[in-house]
């Protein structure tokens, strides 16, 4: 390339002061971004990719963070030695950033008009009227329908995808040279993710911006990036054009990442197996109350008349976008929230039982939650966490017998029993999810509801957890209700699938039939968004 690169990161290191010592988060990395190019930084959590991106704008928590070496040249000037005043000219103006979490990166107290206009006034000194006109133009550009009506909306009135679009509009407001996107689609549904990626790619080519795209998802990289930098443990281990990396990975870590997708297929559904959990006409309606006397005028129908059957040794996958009611359905079946309809568990109707009457049944009816960071109490050692259920359901066990059971179950989920007196924060995400699975398994359940157990995990860890769940199921003849928005995981594990939307079943059937021969547009849109990252025509899926 004869033209000098727009951004050149040279030999950059980032270190954090930690209790007297220093831990190095980024270790001598270098990469260039040319004008109009998209570079993807790929790596698992903890690889230092977000820290690298944040250091471009000097957004790290200085002075506890420091740069022992390196330069970041933007249009020839070193950002690391710039004064705070000069930096402000670059931030939000020439280099802008969109973050992962659209829920928290917009100020909930201001309308979206206010938030976009603020940027325009600040950096371009626009007058009120011009700024408003430009805001409308921007909202149009990022594909928000009826932008005129949306100007006065507050962030909570928008969906996640719309919020991310507003974030993008804010980032584009000053026609930046470089857009840094830090996992911009991770918190979104697959269908919305496809739409946002398409939007970003379109904007980039129209405006001639460069983009630094940070993600852990290789599918996205393949779709959007020109070149890829693979990061692990603070180092870039491989750099190259996207095609080459995917066709011919050189470094073992890249190969490991590429091979990490959940694999394997479950056997065909066995309709002769004994049903463990049967739900008939399950409804969860939340009343909408209005007026002085709080009369119920309508209902939010989170789950609206659903029939499910989960059989021993089989997995029923429940898929759908967020807000489709899939988690609500799972919680209703596990009697964590009240519902109407009949829930038969082991042939017994349990929907009328009180909390106390449910207690003996809880042992056979377990839940594994989505977030392994939130579902383990930070104040209890993992032995205490796992034995909590034993103390209730097998109160006669002596402390030593309990300890043996805890050690056994830890071994079964692939953790070292010697670590059982440690606390959750000493474990990685994948290990924590194993602890959460061990907590359910130690009670020897018949039915386990798995609420997105893999979606907070890195791709390669997801595959391991899926393998673990499959082995446990085969060994103990467990019935799984597997809730996920991730169709790759569902395909690897589920025998039967139901597709949900707005509280109702759109399509149900054996897994193979759903994936190979989907009957409805909605299912087809979900599948193409998940496997090919393609958008569906307007109106089929949510925005």
């Amino acid at each position, binding site marked *: 390339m004869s033209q000098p690169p727009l951004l050149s990161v040279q030999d950059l290191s980032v270190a954090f002061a930690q209790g007297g010592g220093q831990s190095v988060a980024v270790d001598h990395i270098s990469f260039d971004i040319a004008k109009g190019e998209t570079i993807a930084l790929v790596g698992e959590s903890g690889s230092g990719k977000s820290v690298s991106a944040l250091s471009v704008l000097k957004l790290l928590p200085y002075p506890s963070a420091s740069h022992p070496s390196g330069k970041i040249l933007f249009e020839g000037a070193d950002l690391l030695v710039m004064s705070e005043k000069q930096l402000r000219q670059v931030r939000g103006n020439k280099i802008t950033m969109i973050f992962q979490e659209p829920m928290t990166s917009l100020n909930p107290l201001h309308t979206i008009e206010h938030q976009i206009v603020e940027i325009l006034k600040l950096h371009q000194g626009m007058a009120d009227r011009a700024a408003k006109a430009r805001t409308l133009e921007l909202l149009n550009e990022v594909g928000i329908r009826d932008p005129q009506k949306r100007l006065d909306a507050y962030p909570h009135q928008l969906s996640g995808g719309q919020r991310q679009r507003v974030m993008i509009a804010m980032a584009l407001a000053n026609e930046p040279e470089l857009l840094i996107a830090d996992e911009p689609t991770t918190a979104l549904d697959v269908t919305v993710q496809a739409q946002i990626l398409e939007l970003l790619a379109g904007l980039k080519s129209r405006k001639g911006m460069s983009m630094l795209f940070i993600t852990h998802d290789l599918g996205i990289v393949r779709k959007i990036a020109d070149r890829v930098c693979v990061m692990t443990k603070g180092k870039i281990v491989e750099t190259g054009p996207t095609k080459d990396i995917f066709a011919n990975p050189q470094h073992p870590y890249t190969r490991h990442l590429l091979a990490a997708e959940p694999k394997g297929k479950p056997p065909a559904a066995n309709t002769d197996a004994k049903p463990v959990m049967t739900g008939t006409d399950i409804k969860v309606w939340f009343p909408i109350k209005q007026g002085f006397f709080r009369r119920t005028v309508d209902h939010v129908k989170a789950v609206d008349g659903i029939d499910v059957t989960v059989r021993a040794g089989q997995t029923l996958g429940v898929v759908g976008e967020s807000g489709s009611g899939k988690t609500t359905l799972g919680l209703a079946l596990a009697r964590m929230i009240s519902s109407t309809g009949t829930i038969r568990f082991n042939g017994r109707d349990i929907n009328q039982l009180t909390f106390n009457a449910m207690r003996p049944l809880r042992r056979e009816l377990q839940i594994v939650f989505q977030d392994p960071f939130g579902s383990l109490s930070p104040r209890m050692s993992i032995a205490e966490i796992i034995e909590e*259920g034993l103390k209730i359901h097998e109160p006669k066990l002596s402390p030593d017998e309990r300890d043996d*059971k805890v*050690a056994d179950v830890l071994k079964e989920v692939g953790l070292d*029993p010697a670590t059982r007196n440690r606390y959750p924060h000493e474990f990685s995400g994948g290990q924590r999810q194993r602890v959460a699975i061990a907590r359910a398994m130690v009670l020897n359940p018949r039915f386990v509801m798995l609420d997105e157990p893999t979606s907070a995990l890195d791709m390669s860890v997801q595959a391991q957890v899926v393998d673990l769940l499959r082995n446990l199921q085969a060994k*103990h003849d467990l019935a799984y209700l597997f809730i996920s928005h991730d169709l790759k995981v569902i395909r690897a594990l589920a025998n039967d699938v139901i597709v949900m939307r707005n509280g109702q079943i759109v399509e149900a059937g054996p897994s193979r039939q759903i994936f190979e021969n989907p009957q409805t547009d909605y299912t087809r849109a979900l599948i193409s968004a998940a496997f090919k990252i393609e958008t569906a025509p307007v109106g089929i899926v949510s925005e």
Partner: protein
Amino acid sequence: MSEASVTAGVVPERMPRPFLSPLNKRRLQNFKANRRGYWSLWIFLVLFVLSLFAEFIANDKPIIASYKGEILFPVMVAYPEEKFGGFYAVTDYRDPVIQDEINANGWMIWPPIRYSYQTVNNAIPEAAPAKPSWEYDAKVRCNQYPQGAADPACIVGNWNWLGTDDQARDVLARVIYGFRISVLFGLILTAGSALIGVCAGALQGYFGGWTDLLFQRFIEIWSAIPVLYLLLIVAAILPPGFFILLGLMLLFSWVALVGVVRAEFLRARNFEYVNAARALGVPNRTIMFRHLLPNAMVATLTFLPFLLSGSISTLTSLDYLGFGLPPGSASLGELLKQAQRNLNAPWLGISGFVVISLMLSLLVFVGEATRDAFDPRKTFK
């Protein structure tokens, strides 16, 4: 798995669980890292433990006496005067006649300060309030004793180190007893209000909904009752006393913690690990104790030292106004009131001020260090 694992399971070596969880270890370190708070805690503890044994430090009775071959413990047992040849029901060991009688037939060991908080010094050199004894020379100091400076009672044990108040009672003795009663009052009140406040806040936060709504409205009305008027009314009906005062204050002081605890429980009751515990069938009571209370404990413990110093100053101000402890009790508030009435006797005001401000500062420093210790974002080099 269940049967197989119990019988055939390989027993891995058992490790004793560490006494302190890593989190608590870190907190202890953080607490110690705040040197001021750490030292304040030690000074406060030493003072408090010493004051618990006030009877052995400042008293108008000997600690041990030997009389006609019998070992007596006048500090603990009230011997009638008949025992020493008198006729009163209570022995006044400060009476020279009794002293001579005991010394003639044995010996006695006195505490370092020979006054209790109620003891009136009949031999003050000038009209009460008298200056601290070290302000006088020996002759003046003992001019009221029958034999002047040569009197056997003219000794250091009979000094008034901080002078006397306007009823000729020893200020140092009153300060020591006053410190004890203030701290005890504060501790019991704090413990009581923490217990009630945490329970009430926990129930409200955990169950939410109507429970929360009704309870909150009740608290709003309850805390609008003017405590001072109530104290005045009750003082007209019931005899004032330590426990009546404590009970009355407790009726209103528990409200302080409810808000904090309730907020913590409201926040944490939908945490995933709480839901996970519910899914295991853990009863509500256990969830509240094991999973939610530790969350609220941080806020509560941070609050406690400030609640303690608050209760102490409330007691002092009630005493000052005359609605506190019954007349004659050792109270710091009463000392301040005397100081105000006797501006010519600065030792009253200075003693009262130093003791109260020392006590409150120590507690506030300890409170600060506790807050630091529980702050997860605080880092020390």
